[in-house]
């Protein structure tokens, strides 16, 4: 506060600021807010802590209900067991691959689509935009899409996970709005005056100014890929290409216990044991990558999403 030093004493006192007393009402409000936020925080935190604790606890103690917050009978057997199942290990690798490659491809496409649509001069802009939005509301349906993917030769390849539905129109709209708000038309004109081409401008000016929105796109797409299973389910018939979510579904959600459908209690018992053993460690494994990425992207995230949502 070097400026404060040059001020007369009276004003100096004001500038430094005597702590303003909160009114009674403020205090109550503040207390309520902290309590409410505290509860929300607990509500979000508790399941995570529980799952973490359960994943490193003795399976027997978990199923006997002895674990409720901290681990009981610490063991990492559940994590070791994961490595016994090749399908889980390879699907984890596949998921990382799909998330990274899918996010990069999708982000590039989104930027390339969004920037032109954000500029005033683009002829036919309205029609192109309408075509984009149209696909948000109407889709070809499962079978025709399947046929297209089949005919393109994508079926049962990694590309089937990345190319179909790569571009999310919603992200294009957000990104377009971001460009409209942060890259004023004057800047383009200034660039042109200095002899910059449209591509040059996009590369040298737009991209460096768009880090937040790039980060947001990457994150959205990566998390979307990480959580998605439907494309894999429909387009892949090679288990070495399956992402983690498909395998997780099979182990965790498969709960059919109709005895006439499954006439072998041994099989039932086996599945139950498998579920008990792997359930929590698998959830943790599925949770970790997004958790790792979030802190790094978070600062851009708030900024990018807020600006983008202005006219979205």
């Amino acid at each position, binding site marked *: 506060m070097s400026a404060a030093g040059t001020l007369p004493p009276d004003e100096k006192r004001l500038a430094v600021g005597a702590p303003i007393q909160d009114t009674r009402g403020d205090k109550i409000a503040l207390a309520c807010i902290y309590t409410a936020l505290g509860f929300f925080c607990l509500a979000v935190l508790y399941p995570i802590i529980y799952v973490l604790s359960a994943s490193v606890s003795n399976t027997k103690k978990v199923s006997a209900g002895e674990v409720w917050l901290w681990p009981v009978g610490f063991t990492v057997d559940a994590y070791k067991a994961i490595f016994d199942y090749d*399908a889980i290990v390879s699907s984890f690798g596949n998921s990382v691959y799909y998330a990274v490659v899918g996010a990069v491809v999708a982000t590039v496409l989104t930027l390339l689509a969004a920037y032109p649509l954000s500029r005033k001069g683009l002829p036919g802009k309205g029609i192109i935009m309408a075509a984009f939005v149209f696909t948000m509301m109407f889709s070809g349906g499962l079978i025709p899409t399947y*046929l297209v993917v089949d005919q393109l030769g994508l079926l049962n390849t990694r590309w089937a996970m990345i190319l179909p*539905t790569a571009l999310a129109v919603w992200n294009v709209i957000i990104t377009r709005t971001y460009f409209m708000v942060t890259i004023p038309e004057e800047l383009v004109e200034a660039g042109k005056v200095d002899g910059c081409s449209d591509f040059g401008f996009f590369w040298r000016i737009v991209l460096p100014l768009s880090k937040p929105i790039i980060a947001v796109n990457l994150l959205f797409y990566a998390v979307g890929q990480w959580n998605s299973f*439907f494309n894999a389910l429909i387009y892949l*018939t090679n288990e070495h290409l399956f992402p983690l979510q498909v395998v997780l*579904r099979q182990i965790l959600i498969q709960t059919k216990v109709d005895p006439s459908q499954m006439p072998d*209690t041994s099989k*039932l018992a086996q*599945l139950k*044991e498998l579920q008990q053993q792997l359930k929590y460690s698998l959830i943790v494994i599925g949770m970790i990558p997004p958790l790792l990425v979030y802190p790094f992207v978070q600062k851009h995230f708030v900024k990018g999403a807020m600006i983008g949502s202005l006219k979205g």
Partner: protein
Amino acid sequence: MPNNAARSTGISRRSLIAGALGLTAATAGGGLLSGCSGSSNASGAGGGGAAPAPPSVTLGPKLEGVLYPDGYIGPVARELKPITSEKVTFKIVVKQDVTIGDWKTNAFTKWLEQKTNIHIEWNQVGGTDDDVMTKVNAMIAAGDIPDAFMGIEFTRSQLYLYGQQGLFTDVNQFIDGYALNLQQAMKDYPDARKLVQAPDKKIYSFPSINDCYHCRASNGRTFLNTDWIKQVGLDVPKTTDEFREVLRAFKKADLGGNGRTIPFCGYKDAPFDTYFMNSFLYNPGDPWLVVNDGKVDVNFNKDEWREGLKYIHGLYAEGLINKDVFTADQDQMDRYGNAPGKPIIGGARSYYWGGFLDIDQKDPEARWRKYLAVPPVKGPNNVQYAAWNYLGVGVEVAKLVITKKCAKPELLVQWADAQMELEAILRGYGGPKFAWAKKGELGINGKQAVYGFSATWNTEKNISWSQDNAMYRSQDFRLAERVNPKDLTFESPLYQQTVDNYFPYKQPQEMQFPPVTLDQDQAAQEAELKTNLTSEVNLSFSKFVTGQLDPNDDAAWNDYKDRVEKIGVKPYLELEQAAYETYNA
């Protein structure tokens, strides 16, 4: 991706209907079905229409040194002969399953290929069973069809539908010439043919026999803690009143301690009505269809049902049943059953012990051994049934479905038939670590055993096909597994208690509604009626039990009867009656 989620649930919910719609698309896009998969070298003739070659197949010689108990009916160990001299490849769609491991490198895959000379190109579909059906329907609709589907759970009606469209091959024409093991199995199980054939008398899948004895009583099996019964000085209950007395005594004695005792437990995965209602009227459970003198009827709107509701409601109102009986899941049940220290539950409605606690096979004093599967109790009108599943268990359809894409269906039929040979069965579901039983080793039923496994389940991966393929596991076969005195499986007590406590109380077979096959229109109608009826009956059942509706109140009961009537009991019964008559024709 909200779009995808919506699509997936929409389809899996009504997979059957979706399948039907998809088929229309498939026929329209028929140009896509280009020839055969090219794997086998036939001239591309559709397999379905090809006339079967004259029977030329014989079974290999019996294996020496395998002991069979007297009067054994079931699969026999034989030398497997190669099916072709040159290696032939087929493309088969299967479920991915981490308990199976990798289909390509699986021990049984290798063994079978080496024996039969048939190579399989596997296509795996992932996810839950519903997911699998979604994918399979999409494949069929898009004309992307393999030579066969294995272990994909098509319903009888789906098989009939696709079969009639010419998409699935009728294996009936090949059974006489090529499937000698299956022929024998069908002789051993005379009902089998009736259960696997479609209304047009064709057989659209290679069937499997898995005669699981204890499964026939699964729906009614109920456990009580015999230690506790002794401690309160009572006997295993024989009537509904005694049953209530036992639960009351459990509660009063508070044997779990600290008021934590739950006299009786139920959970959402095991229907509660299938035990208690059978003391009032015959109740096979969802969809509650019964046959009275050739007339198909439902039981959930009868006065006896109401009496049952009153009884169960009484138990609930007295606090003898866990409060979350309709919402508890497997995890919650395990918490009750595995409670540290003393057990806290007096009994449970469950298919087997694993439904409410962890089974420790090694420990002869393990907690699960204290719980006895108790017989059905006699109601006020002397009704006492154990709903016995004569028809729904034993014969399985859709284990191997051969499509019209397959150029040499007779080879696949032989391949499937080879899996009905005894050694192949053992390797198929248990892996290579089996041994032929020695003289004097006893099986589950106390007779001479035929085989035994050295390792328990789950210790090794990638060794078997679990139970996804067609096998011939007769009752004698299943009960001929050696019981290892050091590793007492729950199969043995489960069998014995079923013999003693359920079999004697089974209903006459004529009362059971058989698994019928519906045609396309019927199936669509039935699916809707059944869904609505099931949810209404289940919902009202829980409301009556928990007291949200009072079963003693005439108005509430009549309202309920009106509601199910309005949903369509009548058209539903007409459909089922027609299907029942087709089944018997």
